[in-house]
């Protein structure tokens, strides 16, 4: 159904479980993808798995100059960036009273500021093409809050407000800007939880299971597709009913 043949996508955090699934979904629909992340090895492994139409660009999103350069490098590799997926994110969890300025700053810088910079960096090409798709990966905790994640929740909620503002500005140019907010998704990070921890989490999820990374990939694929051209400024919650908002 969703055909992205001829489109080029830049996906950050593609070495992670969700980012990898997003890249696979876009690539599977025919898009050329650039996989970005900090670690070359998993990115290269994914690119090898995907085969043709896959490029790798490492980038440290805490490095402003590197972030500024990334869209340009992606254009050099693919010819354009038609689809941008800001998926990369870090956590520095701590109780609010104990949270350091550094923990706050690191999370805001990597999760929110780099998203701003990458959006800004791809806009010129999208404006000229009169077509673009930006999908920012927020989180259920951006809407609900989460103890120990004041910094992360702020960054993820910030993404939503930023995306809506940008969506206003560029809607008339055929560019949509949306968020996907995953709930609990099975990844390497959640694999580390013990059964007791998982049980407590699942009590909050009406679907009674964790989500699969592919289910985030599918949501991103929809928002990146031509069919979603009238959907902008929204947040698609993919959380098994954990928060119905």
């Amino acid at each position, binding site marked *: 159904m969703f055909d992205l043949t001829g489109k080029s996508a830049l996906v950050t955090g593609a070495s992670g479980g969700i980012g990898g699934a997003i890249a696979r979904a876009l690539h599977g629909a025919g898009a050329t993808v650039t996989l970005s992340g900090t670690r070359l090895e998993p990115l290269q492994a994914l690119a090898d798995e995907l085969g043709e139409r896959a490029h790798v660009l490492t980038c440290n999103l805490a490095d402003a100059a590197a972030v500024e350069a990334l869209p340009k490098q992606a254009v050099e590799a693919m010819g354009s960036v038609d689809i941008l997926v800001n998926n990369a994110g870090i956590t520095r969890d701590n109780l609010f009273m104990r949270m350091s300025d550094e923990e706050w700053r690191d999370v805001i810088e990597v999760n929110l500021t780099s998203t701003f910079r990458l959006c800004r960096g791809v806009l010129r090409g999208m404006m000229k093409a009169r077509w673009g798709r930006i999908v920012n990966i927020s989180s259920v905790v951006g809407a609900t809050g989460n103890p120990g994640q004041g910094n992360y929740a702020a960054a993820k909620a910030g993404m939503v407000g930023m995306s809506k503002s940008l969506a206003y500005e560029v809607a*008339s140019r055929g560019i949509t800007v949306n968020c996907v907010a995953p709930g609990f998704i099975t990844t390497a990070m959640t694999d580390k939880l013990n059964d007791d921890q998982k049980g407590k989490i699942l009590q909050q999820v009406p679907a009674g299971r964790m989500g699969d990374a592919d289910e985030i990939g599918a949501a991103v694929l929809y928002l990146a597709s031509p069919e979603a051209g009238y959907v902008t400024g929204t947040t698609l919650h993919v959380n098994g009913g954990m928060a119905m908002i």
Partner: protein
Amino acid sequence: MSDIADRVKKIVVEHLGVDEDKVTENASFIDDLGADSLDTVELVMAFEEEFGIEIPDDAAETIQTFGDAVKFISEAA
């Protein structure tokens, strides 16, 4: 009319979809030619590409009319 003015006028006419005779020396992009703020950003982008120049943001803000654009580009190109 100079070559630069012709090229600037062509870009303005194409981008804003206005009649060529409306694009006069003192025509304001926003007040007279119906541009919105995003249009003015796009015009500056188009000027940069057409003439191979960089127009910094603070300079871009001073380019309000067709005449402003021709003058700036003539000095920069």
